[in-house]
Each structure stands twice: as structure tokens, then as C-alpha cells.
């Protein structure tokens, strides 16, 4: 009965936009006031591009969520780096009333949320700390609690998503980004680093950084980075930004530049000093002051730009559309596999398949008909 939708020609509507900025709200004046027209006709402005402004408004109203995990041995400056990145005391250490400087016996996962706002943009930032990682004598399987935590968040999201009566906006506690701190040995990656990144890069976006980079000279730093990149390649570890998720040529170009720079060599600080008449974040030593945001000194600014200013949305998208979906596929196939004998042999399975599409069968295990 329905004629198939015909995709027609690409139509270019004249856009009399010379008097508007990119994100300006369209005026409600009479249709005539629309910038200079060459032929004096009103034909032209429809207003489709106003949807961009509508989207912005909606995003500003809803606010954003971002969940970032920090992993690394104690003493590598994880908390300081977080505080520097977000210019406030977001780390666990700043929040705990009596900071106990003890090394936990097992890996703990501690998650702290903050509500921050900048120029009208509200964000719920969650920093997930992993004290105890890599600190034991025997560190085999130290990724397990972390892997479990990440998968638990995917599970929680999945559970909410398959509810019959579900929330308008599913609370997103999935780990968007995991910053892995590499100690500045200057040589190469340790087995712990390789093992962790190899396993976790399959489930979460990993951003490796060289911690406390002020102990490396520029040459040492370059050599170290090169070695790390080679080792990552040799072990098949795909860190963010992953090559396979580049969307187009422009993306690839930008991301290639980033891939040539990772891991970023960072220095963190939440103390301000006077340098050349300006107050800047830095570390003061007897031989000089390291300016955190100076790209000649360290690569903190690149990390900040990547994580926050340019790629934050992309990081969230990759988490949602790729890592989460991978988890979901695996999880749903697992529940199908519990069914023995093999589904297609059983006569009832065939009967079920006639009523519902085969792909939906996993749904039955989550929510079975109660008749």
C-alpha cells in the first residue's frame, strides 16, 4: 500500500545569512528583514538551520555527564593531575575529610561526583580513582576489579535500557575515559602496563600519559614516547583515538597528529606562582619553575585540549556507540547460549521463532512472559 520512499535530489536552499552569526537565534521580525538579497525575492530562508540553536538550548538545559577514571601506581600524581585538569579539587584526596595516606591491601574503586558549571554549561563530572592498583607485591590480575567495575556500569545501563518503564534519560555512569599513568622510567613499558592496557583498551577508551614528566629531559622524553608507541603497536593495543573509529579524512588527519604525540608527558600542579608578572600553575624547584600550561615545558595543555575542549563529545560517543554496544552484544549472546539443547533443534524454539523475530529471543531471558 505504501509507495517506497524516494530519496530525491539534494536541494540547496538559498540562505540569506549574511547578517547572522553561526549560532545566532533567528529574529522574529517580519520576513523582509533578511540581509541583502540580490534578486529582491523573499524565497530563500526556511529556518532549518535554526535546529542547531535548538539543540544547543536543549543541551544547555539538560547538562552533560562525564566519567573519568584514573589508573596508576600511588605517587604518580593522579589526584594532582585531575585537580589541574578541572581547576578545582575534584580528586578523592581533596574530598576525603581525613586523607589517610595508606596503601590499600586490595584495589579499591572510589567514585566521586561533582557538579561544575562554566559559562552556563553544567556538567556532572565523576572521577573514579583506583587506589591500590599496581602497589601489591603480586600484581597479577590487578585489572580484574577495574574491568569488573567498568562492566558493571555497562550492565547497569543495559538494565535500565531494557526496562519496560524506563527513565526519560538513562543515568550514564559508564566510564568514558580511563587515564593510565605510566611511571617516567624513560625506558619502556612494564609488563603490568602492557597487560593492563591490552585488556582494558578493548572495553574502554584508554589515554596513556607519562606521569611526573618533569624528571625527563626532552630527548629522554621523545625516546620514551617513541618506545612506548612502538610497544603499543607491537602488542596490538589501540588507545584513544583509535584508528578504526576515525570518521572521515578530516578526522583522520586531526587524530593522526594526536596519535603521533601520545602518550602525553604531563606535569600536574594546583599551586600558582608568579612568572613574568603572571600568575600561572606550576611547580617551583630550585632550578626553575615548571609551567604546567606551557607547551614548551610539558604536554598538559594538549591533554587538556584533547580530553575537554575538542574530543570530549567524541570520547563519550565512542563509549556509547562502540564499547557499550560490544558489551551488550556479548552479554545478550551469552544469555542465548544458556539455552540447551541448541536452540534450533528444539521444536519449541521453532515455534517461538514463528511468533517473534529470532533476534529478540534474548529478551525472553531478561523479561519472560508471565502468563
Amino acid at each position, binding site marked *: 500500500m*505504501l*509507495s517506497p*520512499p524516494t*530519496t*530525491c*535530489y539534494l536541494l540547496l*536552499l538559498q540562505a540569506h545569512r549574511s547578517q547572522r552569526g553561526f*549560532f545566532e*537565534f533567528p529574529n*522574529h521580525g*517580519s*520576513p523582509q528583514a533578511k540581509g541583502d538579497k540580490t534578486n529582491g*525575492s*523573499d524565497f*530563500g530562508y*526556511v529556518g*532549518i*538551520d*535554526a*535546529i*542547531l540553536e*535548538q*539543540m*544547543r538550548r*536543549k543541551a*544547555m*538545559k*539538560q547538562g552533560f555527564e562525564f566519567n573519568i577514571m584514573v589508573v596508576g601506581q600511588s605517587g604518580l600524581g593522579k589526584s594532582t593531575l585531575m585537580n589541574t*585538569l578541572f581547576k578545582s*579539587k575534584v580528586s578523592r584526596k581533596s574530598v576525603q575529610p581525613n586523607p589517610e595516606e595508606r596503601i590499600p591491601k586490595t584495589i579499591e574503586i572510589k567514585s566521586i*561526583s561533582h*557538579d561544575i558549571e*562554566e*559559562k*552556563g554549561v553544567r556538567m*556532572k563530572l565523576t572521577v573514579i580513582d583506583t587506589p591500590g592498583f599496581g602497589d601489591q607485591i603480586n600484581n597479577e590480575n590487578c585489572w580484574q576489579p577495574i574491568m569488573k567495575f567498568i562492566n558493571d556500569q555497562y550492565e547497569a545501563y543495559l538494565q535500565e535500557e531494557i*526496562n*519496560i*518503564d524506563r527513565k526519560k*534519560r538513562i543515568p550514564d555512569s559508564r566510564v568514558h575515559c580511563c587515564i593510565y599513568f605510566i611511571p617516567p622510567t624513560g625506558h619502556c613499558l612494564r609488563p603490568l602496563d602492557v597487560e593492563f592496557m591490552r585488556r582494558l583498551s578493548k572495553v574502554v577508551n584508554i589515554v596513556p600519559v607519562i606521569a611526573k614528566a618533569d624528571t625527563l629531559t626532552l630527548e629522554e622524553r621523545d625516546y620514551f614516547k617513541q618506545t612506548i608507541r612502538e610497544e603499543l603497536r607491537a602488542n596490538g593495543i589501540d588507545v584513544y583515538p583509535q584508528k578504526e573509529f576515525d570518521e572521515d579524512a578530516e578526522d583522520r588527519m586531526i587524530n593522526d597528529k594526536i596519535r603521533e604525540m601520545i602518550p602525553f608527558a604531563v606535569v600536574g600542579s594546583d599551586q600558582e606562582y608568579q612568572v613574568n608578572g603572571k600568575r600561572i600553575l606550576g611547580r617551583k624547584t630550585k632550578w626553575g619553575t615548571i609551567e604546567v600550561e606551557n607547551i614548551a615545558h610539558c604536554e598538559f595543555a594538549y591533554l*587538556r585540549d584533547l580530553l*575537554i*575542549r575538542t*574530543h*570530549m*563529545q*567524541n570520547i563519550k560517543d565512542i563509549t556509547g556507540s562502540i564499547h557499550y*554496544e560490544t558489551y*551488550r*552484544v556479548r552479554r545478550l*549472546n551469552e544469555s542465548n547460549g544458556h539455552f540447551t539443547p541448541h536452540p534450533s533443534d528444539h521444536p*519449541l524454539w521453532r515455534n517461538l521463532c514463528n511468533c*517473534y523475530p529470532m533476534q*529478540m529471543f534474548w529478551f525472553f*531471558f531478561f*523479561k*519472560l*512472559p*508471565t*502468563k
Partner: protein
Amino acid sequence: IGEAVNDTEIDIKDKGVRPLSLAGHVGFDSLPDQLVNKSICQGFCFNILCIGETGIGKSTLMDTLFNTNFENFESSHFEPQVKLRAQTYDLQESNVRLRLTVVNTVGFGDQMNKQESYQPVVDYIDRQFESYLQEELKIKRSLHNYHDSRVHACLYFISPSGHSLKSLDLVTMKKLDSKVNIIPVIAKADTISKSELHKFKIKIMSELVSNGVQIYQFPLDDETVAKVNTTMNGHLPFAVVGSTEEVSVGNKMVKARQYPWGVVQVENENHCDFVKLREMLICVNMEDLREQTHTRHYELYRRCKLEEMGFKDTDPECKPVSLQQTYEAKRQEFLVELQKREDEMRQMFVQRVKEKEAELKEAERELQSRFEHLKRIHADEKATLEEKKRLLDEDQSSFSKRRAAAQLLQAQSLTANGKKDKDRKK
């Protein structure tokens, strides 16, 4: 359910979330820009459904609204049933790419019996929801590439009778109000005078209210647009005039309809509400229309569909159950159910076998009795034949006896004659 808290916003009062002030510029204020850039790359989708009688001006209005000439077919008034025709177009304005689908009803209001006229429309809308639901429930899905065909806005064209809504209008809108965002418009508004129009609008709105039809309300929760939306809500339904022809007015060319008594300018707000419609539908609320479709209408459809299939979220005691427990419980239930059905089937099988056996036995018996019968007949015939043979044999033997006796007599008589001859010769 009517919660007071708008749960699309992040709940700041969440336990464990504390507000924090920043000591400097971090840079996440670029997030909305990042989001918008992503959307620009992906492009947008918008689907409009136009319901109205044949010839009421649906296609012309779409042309006027989007400033183009969509392929239009003039429909006949003799369609036996209401059909829907969907056409998809790729439009672009500055850097925004829009995939627009316009769905028109064909033959709406033409039939003599209009009782089922709304059904094809409802079915179409449901089909789009179903299609999305299927995609969402797939194991390997690609929601981000999915071409969303769900109807975002439904323009209902009201005939400019000047009196009131037709019962077909009320029935149709009532069926659709929980499935789609309905925006009623008065078509061909240049046939109504201003005073009549005002009364007409009031009448229409009151009829909608008294019949409980929920039309789309322009959203008032964002202060930036609350004022203009409130005003526009008061102008519903929009009285529109569509035209793609240009007429020269003053020193400009404007879209208009030329009559001997004057020129109706489409984009003149004194003449009709076209500009208001365009403003509300496209410039101000397009995103909200899409969102309402997804978060309200689609969710309702999904919930109903899944409940229909028998799914529930919580166990009968209304306590949320952990997945593991639910899974184990359901699995047990399912296996028990399977076992029961298997037993039933086995029983049925045994039953059938018995029945078949009985049938076969019966057939065998019948065969046997027929065989006996035939055998008896055969035996009878055989006896008869034997009897005949015996008689024949008797006949034969008596005949041979008689022949033998006759021969003997003949031989005797010959011998006697021979003797006589001998005697004479002597």
C-alpha cells in the same frame, strides 16, 4: 505519573554530588559546540505527516514551507481506501543537512463510509515505531546510522467551513493524539474572513478540549522561547495559505495568491498564519517535536507493545529484583515450562500412536473378515465344483460301463453270427 522534577535534567540534589566552583577556565563550555558539530556531520531527520482531504492544499503547503517543489501527484477523489504516500528528500540550508520525509494521506475523506479512515494512518505510525523498536532490540544494532522514520509532527488540515470540526476530524485526532504530535491547521484560510476566522478558531479549540483531544503544545519550560511559544499556543490552530507562485507587490516579488479582488500574501502575518507555522514548526520547536516523539510517544508505544507480549519489570510483590535472581528464576520457570510442554507433547504423541494403532487394528480386522468371507465363498464354490465333478465322474463311469457292456454284446453277437456261418458251410 506526573513527577514534579523534570528528570531530563541532571539531578543536582543527587547524593554524593557536590557543586564545585572552578578556579579558572577549564574549557568544557565548548561541549555544546562539540555536540552540535557532531550533529552537523551526522545530519538531521524530520518526518511530517499531513492528514487532510484530497485537494485541501497539503502538498502546496509543504512546497511553500520548504521553499521547494516536491514531486507532487494530483490524487483522484475515487480512492477506495485511504492510503499513505511517503517521500523522502535531502535538503540543505547553509551547513545543515536535513533528511525530510513528507507523508501525505491519499483519499482521506473521499469514501462514503469513513469509519475506518483513520486506521491506515494509525497503522503507518505504529509501523514506524515498530521498526525502531525492532532495531533497538536487535543484538547487533546500529541506532546511530538508523534512518529514523518515526513521525515527528502531524499537520491536521481542517476544512475552512467556518463552523466547526467534522466528526471525521474529531475521531481521527482522538485516535492519533497519543501517538503523534498533532498540530491542527486551517487550510485555505483565504476563504474565511477575519471575524469568522476568530470565531472558528475558538470553536475548534473548545471542541478539541471538550472531546479530550491532546494536541501538541509548544513547550514553555525554556525561558528563551517560553514567551513566544505561549503567544503562539494562543493562535492555534494556524490559518494557513500556501502558494509557490510569486506575485509582484510593491517593488518586490512575494509568494502570494492573486485574485481579482486582491493579493493574499503568504508571508504577510496580517493575511495568514503561515509565518507563525513555519516559525513554530521549524525555527523554534523542531528539536522539541523530535524529542517528544522519542521520549513520549515512542516510549508509550514500546511500553504497551512489550506489556502486550507479557513482559514486566518487577515481580508480583512489586519489589525490584536483581538481574541474577530474575534470570535464574525466569530460567527455571522457562525450563519447567519447557519440560511441561515436552511432557504434553510426549503424551499427545503416545495418544496419537494409540489411536493410530487402534485404527490399524480395526483395518486389519476388517481385512481379516473380508478374507474369511472370500475364503468361504471360495470353499463353497469348490464344494459345488467337486460335486459336479463327482456327478460327471459317475456319469462317465456309468457310460463306460454301458459301453463296455454294449461292446461285449456286440462281440458276442458277432461270434454267434460267425458260428452260424460256419455251421452253414458244412
